[in-house]
């Protein structure tokens, strides 16, 4: 037992590159391992068609997790994503109600609404000075209640062709997933090359220092939760396209699930360390894992055990001094 294990004492210098390589390396390694195993299990696993399916299936998780990555990078977390997606998805299909003319205005409105809800989260966190985990759990409950107030059953529907967002493919490549990929590349670029991006890292690294430095800590905190809301809205619209309607519990699973790709992708829950590309790879890994488990032909319960163990394996590869 040594103190060094938990402090930032300088051991060896210039570990900048290796650290990032390690971070993404583990996800990539796991992806490779599962691919190899999958090919051993079934000859259909290794087909291009299957990988294109997995690519498409990563879309929703990748979308929510992007917003989650931002909140986690600032040292927070957004546990209202699930309820927010539920509410926004019932509203989307409920208001559109299969009327083609309403698609664009409603989607625009939902995106704005998502940002407003996210902003409210951000304001509550900044004003109340309560840990985001608690605030967003609270607002999450409120949003879930509102979703059920709006409807207890799947609501409304969407016109034909709307499902192109979710199932559309050009040259066999999922359009939705590709848009998400592009969003990620853009986000990664912005996070590195804009002041806002660097400031988000700084806040998570040392919030107090960020305040002293005069960084717009409050504004940025509100911004990341607003962005998380925006991405929830996009996820909700995507799910409506994929499900053909909105469900009052459509998002329930995403609350905790959205955290997994973030962390598996090497972003530390204590904030300030990590990156969005890791999250994207994390989402791919999880989609691939689900697919692999389906090919494995073992019973559900064994699948759960395997899934948990793989998460444990992945996360125990990262050390995180601080709590999260």
């Amino acid at each position, binding site marked *: 037992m040594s103190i060094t294990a938990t402090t930032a004492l300088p051991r*060896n210098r210039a570990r900048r590159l290796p650290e990032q390589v390690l971070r993404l390396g583990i996800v990539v390694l796991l992806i490779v391992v599962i691919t190899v195993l999958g090919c051993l299990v079934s000859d259909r696993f290794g087909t291009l068609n299957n990988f294109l399916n997995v690519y498409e299936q990563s879309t929703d998780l990748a979308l929510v997790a992007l917003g989650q990555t931002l909140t986690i990078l600032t040292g927070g977390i957004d546990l209202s994503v699930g309820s927010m997606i539920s509410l926004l998805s019932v509203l989307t299909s409920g208001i559109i109600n299969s009327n083609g003319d309403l698609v664009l205005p409603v989607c625009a409105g939902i995106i704005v609404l998502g940002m407003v809800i996210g902003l409210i989260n951000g304001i509550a966190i900044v004003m109340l000075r309560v840990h985001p985990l608690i605030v967003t759990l609270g607002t999450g409950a409120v949003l879930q209640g509102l979703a059920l107030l709006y409807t207890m059953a799947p609501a409304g529907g969407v016109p034909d062709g709307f499902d192109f967002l979710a199932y559309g493919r050009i040259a066999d490549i999922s359009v939705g997933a590709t848009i998400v990929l592009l969003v990620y590349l853009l986000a990664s670029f912005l996070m590195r090359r804009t002041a806002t991006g660097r400031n988000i890292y700084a806040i998570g690294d040392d919030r107090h220092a*960020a305040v002293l*430095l005069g960084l717009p800590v409050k504004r940025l905190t509100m911004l990341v939760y607003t962005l998380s809301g925006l991405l929830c809205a996009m996820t909700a619209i995507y799910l409506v396209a994929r499900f053909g309607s909105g469900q009052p519990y459509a998002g329930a699973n995403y609350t905790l699930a959205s955290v997994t790709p973030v962390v598996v992708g090497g972003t530390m829950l204590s904030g300030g*360390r990590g990156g969005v590309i890791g999250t994207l790879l994390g989402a791919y890994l999880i989609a691939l894992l689900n697919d692999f488990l389906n090919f494995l032909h073992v019973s559900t319960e064994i699948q759960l055990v395997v899934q948990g163990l793989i998460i444990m394996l992945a996360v125990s590869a990262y050390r995180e001094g601080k709590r999260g």
Partner: protein
Amino acid sequence: MLSVSGIRKAFPGVQALAGVKLEVKAGEIHALVGENGAGKSTLTRIIAGVESPDEGEIRLGEAVVQWHGPAQAKAAGIHVIYQEFVLFPHLTVAENIFLGRMPRNRLGLLDHAQAERRSREILDRLGVSIDVRQQVRLLTVADQQMVEIAKAMIDTPKVLILDEPTAVIAGREVELLFTRLRRLREAGVAIIYISHRLDEIFALCDRLTVIKDGQWIATQPVAGMTRDTLITMMVGRDLAHLFPPHEQPPPAQPDVVLQAQDIHVGRRVLGCSLELHAGIITGLAGMVGSGRSELAMAIFGGLPMERGTVTIAGRSFRTITPGQAISLGIGFVTEDRKGQGLAMLQPIGANISAASLETVRRGVMRDGRREWQIAEEDIASYQIACRGPGTLVSTMSGGNQQKVLIARWARACHRVLILDEPTRGVDVGARAEIYRIMRGLAARGIAILMISSELPEVVGMSDRVYVMREGSITGILEKDEITEEAVVDLATHDRQAA
């Protein structure tokens, strides 16, 4: 240039500032002095817009200003180097220097290359060589302080406030800093300089303002003041001897209590040996970054040693844990009180008893009354400014936190007490008390190892001195050999080269 008046600020339970005033002209270096907890840092934070005053007025030039957040103050040309580091451990040096005002290219995107180039230039001008692409957490504390200073050098501020900037640097770096500050003064910058090292104030500053208990006491030109008048103003009494004399001469043939042999720790400590004697204060001097803290940490068991043995009271250890060290009667006042010393969200009482919990045991219970009583005793004897044993450590001033830490270990050790920079950030009054405590402990037969970067302290307190340079011990000085020159000689490159 900058003047504040009638500033009042209350924290829950504490009136930190009770009507302070301060006036700084352009092109002067103005010292702000006062005891620990006098309110210097609070005033700094108010001027910088981090906290808003309950009452009072800030004028910048002619205009009355009111900040809503630090960004505004910054935009108005006020730059502050805070007592605590404002650094982001996982960002690079260059990013840290430029954060909040990164250079951009034509597309409005950050220009990392330019930031790195300019950071390198600034650091060169400050005379330190630091890899600007490194994460700041990998730097030594001294280098981190230089990065902190570099941040103030990007563009010329109107007002520059430095809150104990030399607490973790010494020697050449201090000189370089002073040179820069004098140059800024010539450029017409108004500089507020806060320090507990009085020599620095006499060497650098033009005028000074003394505050005490949150109130303005005096503003005077430095020229014409003496050390003693300054101390009297600050503390409200004479301090005849900063370094108390021996009450009785140290033992001539003292017992060896602790022996460290050929200690290796990474690339920082390369085979150091030392002996500590009962009743003797042993100084461990050296340049910042010479590896003194690592050596002490390894002896205490806080860092794993790759090679070497530690012998305490006849028992030899190749590996040792803090638990073992403590049970053998070793105490360790760490230099980084926030990161390695105190539990900030716990009250004073809990922090003091933390290392000697057995003394507040009653049966299976913790004796809360005894703990409280002990804390009250220490608060009185160390003059810790607080509301009582229940005060949260996080709400206390830096110097008072240091006293809490010393109080903890003074109670816990009975053979050896290691003090790493024991008076860092501590005011003269308290400093004298800490020195007397050290003497008292030594008189009771405790061996003391004092790591210090302050030469007067090393010379004034030590009975023996080890000097370290770049991970090795370069010399041992006994009694009369201990002079500032001798220590500097052993500690610096020049001699080796000669």
